[in-house]
């Protein structure tokens, strides 16, 4: 019993990271994937913020799901989300001042992330608190991994460093830390993952649908 539950929680997390990766597979909530990924530190911080908001929102929604009337659920979800985003926003503003100056706007914009609303709507509103929390954890981790991956390539190629530590001593490709590089890296990574999916798992290649 206990063992079984553990596996399913693990699966929820794995599902969030690989099968339903917010950025590369579902192709939603893309705005920050470029905006903050010009350095690993920023990408990581925003990823953590999203991870936290997603888990807490899922848990709160699951906790209150019996009291939320289905017809007004979307505004209620928005309220819950914006409450947690405000919380994270204030914590970041207080304890991570330097980074907040750069990514503050994007922290606030977590409110409008489709992925968070989608998880709350599709999973948390139908499940109990603990599974909902782990679903949020998985989906948030997937987002975090994607952001760190993108920012890793961009910082390595654009500044020749990783998380501020210089590694390559050649002349960096400035274009990678400009917006253009972000679009390019995400596009190439997406294509790469589609290729892996087709080549080794027989998938048809996702990312064609494209939501918001």
């Amino acid at each position, binding site marked *: 019993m206990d063992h079984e539950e553990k596996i399913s929680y693990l699966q929820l997390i794995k599902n969030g990271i690989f099968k339903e990766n917010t950025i590369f597979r579902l192709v939603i909530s893309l705005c920050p994937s470029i905006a903050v990924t010009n350095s690993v530190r920023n990408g990581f911080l925003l990823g953590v913020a999203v991870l936290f908001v997603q888990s807490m929102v899922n848990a709160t929604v699951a906790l209150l799901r019996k009291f939320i009337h289905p017809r007004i659920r979307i505004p209620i979800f928005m309220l819950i989300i914006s409450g947690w*985003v*405000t919380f994270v926003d204030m914590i970041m503003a207080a304890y991570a001042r330097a980074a907040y100056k750069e990514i503050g*706007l994007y922290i606030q914009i977590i*409110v*409008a992330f489709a992925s968070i609303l989608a998880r709350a709507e599709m999973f948390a509103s139908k499940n109990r608190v603990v599974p909902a929390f782990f679903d949020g954890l998985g989906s948030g981790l997937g987002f975090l991994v994607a952001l760190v991956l993108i920012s890793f390539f961009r910082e390595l190629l654009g500044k020749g460093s990783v998380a501020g530590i210089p590694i390559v001593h050649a002349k960096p490709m400035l274009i990678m830390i400009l917006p253009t590089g972000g679009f390019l890296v995400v596009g190439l990574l997406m*294509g790469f993952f589609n*290729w892996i999916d087709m080549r080794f798992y027989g998938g048809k290649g996702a990312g064609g649908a*494209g939501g*918001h």
Partner: protein
Amino acid sequence: MEKEFIKLFELFIAASVINNFVFTRFLGLCIFFGVSKKMETAIGMSITFTSVMVVAAALSWLVFYYIMVPLEITFLKIIIFIGIVAAFVQASDTIMRKVSPGLYYKLGVYLALISTNCIIIAVPLINTGEKYNFLESLSFGLGSGIGFAIALTVMASIREKLELADVPRPFRGMPIAWVTTALISLAFMGFSGLITL
């Protein structure tokens, strides 16, 4: 007076091309990739979005300075702005359905999508963050709406051609759209330095 006007014009240009929301601030990408497959939908979205954007900028400015500042609840601005946008979108959806069903039939779909567009929440946040006055907020809102419209139509016209191109299989759909956007944003970098604010 003339100086005022020039400032407004500068803001408009800056918001629409120099700091184009899609290509330099990377906001609204979700919708940008979602509806840029066909020219027709792109134009429908552009019209709806620009008009909603201007009204949302005005509404949020009024609420911020006449309700939130006197009550000292500016720290709630994220919650309140998203509420204003959601309520306004819902209201115009209902009104449009009653008043002009023809228009609703054409543009109603896009209206529902708009509340998930990041630009619509970013513009009020930037407006109050930069302490723009009412007219400046309006012209910033209009500029960002037009900027989004430009981005959307450019992208749609390219993607319609891309349909006919022989793209490697893993890159079909989204990935190639991203690479294309990278190239467009490179072109948009040419606008930087046109006006310095």
